[in-house]
C-alpha cells in the first residue's frame, strides 16, 4: 500500500522533470565553488556540520531540506553574509575559483562583488527603480551613458524592462512583490557577479510571479553560477541541474545527506532519508 503511494509520488516528480529540460551536467564541467568540511556556529550552537560539496560553473544547484535545517545558514557562508551576525564562527573552507574566501587576506567586499545574493523577501532600496539598479555599478564608479546602458540591459535580462521602462524614476517600493524580486535580480546582475545566491526567492510570491522568476533563472543559468535554496521541490526539479538534500542531526546541526544530479535525487535517491523527504513522509 505505502509502496504504491510512494512510487506514484515519485512519478509526479518524474513528470515535473519531463515538462522542463533539466540542465545537463557532464563530468567535465568546471567547479566554480568548492565547499570543504564546513562547520558553522552561532555561538555554541553548531548549525552546519561537515558539509562538502562542489558547485559547478554556469548551472543551477538547488539546496532542499526541511525548515530550520540550515539551508540559509549554508548559503550565507558562500558570500560571507554569516559574518554579519555577531558571535559566529566558521571552520573548513569555501573556495571560489580555488581561492579560499575565508582567507585572512581576502577582502570581503570583493568577495560579495563576485558572489551576489537575492533574498527571501524582496528588499529594493527606498530609491527609484533606476537608482536601485544603478546602485552597484555606481559603487564601481560607472556613470553617464554607460550607466544608463547597464541599467537598461540589467532590467531586460531580469525580464522587467517592458514593465518599468516608462517609470524608471518611480520608487522601487511601488512595484508588486514579483516585480520587486525581479528588480532585486536586476540589481544583482548589474554588477556582473560570477555567482548568484538565491534564498527562497519565490516564497513571498504568487504562482505567476514564481513562474517568471523560474523562467528568469533558466535564462540566467547559461551565464551565471546559481545556487538556490528552495522548499518547493517541484521548483528544484524544474530548474536545477544538481540538487543537495540537507537534514538535521539529532543535535540539530545541518548536514548534507545527498548531493547529485537532480534527476537522480528525485527519481532514484541513494539514501532512504532523501526518498522519505521527497515523497512527503518527512518535514
Amino acid at each position: 500500500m505505502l509502496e504504491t503511494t510512494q512510487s506514484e509520488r515519485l512519478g509526479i516528480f518524474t513528470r515535473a522533470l519531463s515538462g522542463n529540460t533539466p540542465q545537463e551536467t557532464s563530468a567535465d564541467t568546471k567547479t566554480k565553488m568548492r565547499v570543504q568540511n564546513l562547520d558553522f556556529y552561532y555561538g555554541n550552537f553548531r548549525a552546519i556540520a561537515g558539509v562538502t560539496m562542489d558547485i559547478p560553473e554556469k548551472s543551477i544547484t538547488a539546496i532542499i531540506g526541511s525548515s530550520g535545517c540550515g539551508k540559509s545558514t549554508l548559503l550565507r557562508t558562500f558570500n560571507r553574509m554569516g559574518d554579519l551576525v555577531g558571535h559566529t564562527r566558521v571552520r573548513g573552507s569555501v573556495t571560489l575559483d580555488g581561492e579560499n574566501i575565508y582567507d585572512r587576506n581576502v577582502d570581503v567586499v570583493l568577495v560579495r562583488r563576485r558572489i551576489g545574493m537575492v533574498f527571501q523577501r524582496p528588499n529594493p532600496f527606498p530609491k527609484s527603480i533606476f537608482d536601485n539598479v544603478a546602485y552597484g555599478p555606481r559603487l564601481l564608479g560607472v556613470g553617464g551613458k554607460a550607466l544608463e546602458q547597464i541599467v537598461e540591459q540589467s532590467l531586460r535580462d531580469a525580464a522587467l524592462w517592458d514593465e518599468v521602462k516608462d517609470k524608471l524614476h518611480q520608487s522601487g517600493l511601488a512595484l508588486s512583490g514579483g516585480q520587486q524580486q525581479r528588480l532585486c535580480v536586476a540589481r544583482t546582475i548589474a554588477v556582473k557577479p560570477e555567482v548568484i545566491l538565491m534564498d527562497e526567492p519565490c516564497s513571498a510570491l504568487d504562482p505567476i510571479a514564481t513562474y517568471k522568476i523560474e523562467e528568469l533563472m533558466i535564462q540566467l543559468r547559461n551565464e551565471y553560477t546559481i545556487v538556490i535554496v528552495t522548499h518547493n521541490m517541484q521548483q528544484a526539479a524544474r530548474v536545477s541541474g544538481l540538487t543537495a538534500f540537507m537534514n538535521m542531526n539529532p543535535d540539530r546541526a545541518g548536514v548534507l545527506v545527498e548531493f547529485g544530479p537532480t534527476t537522480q535525487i528525485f527519481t532514484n535517491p541513494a539514501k532512504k532519508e532523501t526518498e522519505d523527504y521527497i515523497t512527503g513522509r518527512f518535514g
Partner: protein
Amino acid sequence: MNQTQNHPRTSAPLLGMSKAHFARRKITNIVMLSLTGAATVLAIIPLLWITLYVTIQGSRFLNIEFFTQLPTPVGVPGGGIVNAIVGTGLVVGVACVIAIPVAIIGAFFAADYPNTPLGLAIRFGTDVLSGIPSIVMGIFAYTIIVLPQRRFSAFAAGVALAIIMLPLVLRTTEEMLKLVPRGLREGSLALGASNWKTSVQVLLPAALNGVVTGIMLAIARAAGEAAPMLFTAFGSTGLVTDLNESTATLPHTIYIYAMSPFKDWQEKAWAAALVLIALVLGLNILARALTWWRARQMGLNY
C-alpha cells in the same frame, strides 16, 4: 459546572459566558476606559494651560517692533528682543554644527557594532550624559572655554548646548537606524558595498525622517535652556553676530526680564516667553509633519 468546561472545543466561549460575567466585564471596561481618559486629560491640561496663559499674557505686548528692535532701557516704551532671537539662532547653530556630525557618526557606530567595547561605551556615555543637569554643562563650558579665553562668548554657549543635544540626537538616530529593515543593509552589502557606503547611501536616507525629527526635538530642547546661558553667552543689549562675543538669548532674556522689579520688563518677559514657546511648538509640529510626510512618501513597510 457548565457544559463548556467539559467540552471546551465544541462550545464557543461567547455562548458559554454567563450574563453576570458579561456585565462585570462591561463595567470593568467602562471604568478602565474612564481612568485612561482622565489620565490623558490630566496630562494635557498643563500643556494647554501654560500655552494658553502665556499666549494671553504675551500677545498683549507682542508687535512687529518686538521682533525687529533692540531692547530699550527701563521706562522707555517700545523696543524688542531682536538681539535675543538672533543670539539664540547663533548659539543653537553652533551647537548643531558641533553636535550633529558627532552624534550621527557615533550612532552609526553604536548601531553597527553594538557589542564592541566602543559601542557599549557610546551607549553608556550618552545615557549618563542625558541625565546630567544642564547647569553642569554650563559650568563645564565656562571652565574649559570662558575662563581660559577670559570672556563670555556665543561659542561657549554653543558648546554647552552641543553637549545637551549630543545624546538626544545620537540616541534617536541609533534607534532609527535599528528600525531600518535588516534586509536593506544586507542588500547593499551583498552588492559589494562597504559598511561605510551602506551607512551613508542606504541606511541614513532610510532613517532620515527619524533623524531629522530627533534633531528638531533636540534643537527645541536646547533653545529653551536658560541655566547654561548664565555662564556662557551671558547676555548683551546689542545685536551680536560674532561668535567670540557675549550675546543675549531668548531664555536668558526671559530670565532677566522676569526677575526684574520693573513692570514693563516683566511684560516683555511674557512676550519673549510666547516667542520661545511658539518656536519650540513650531519645531515639534514641523518634526511630526515631516515624519508623517516621509513615511507616506517612501511607503516603508517591510
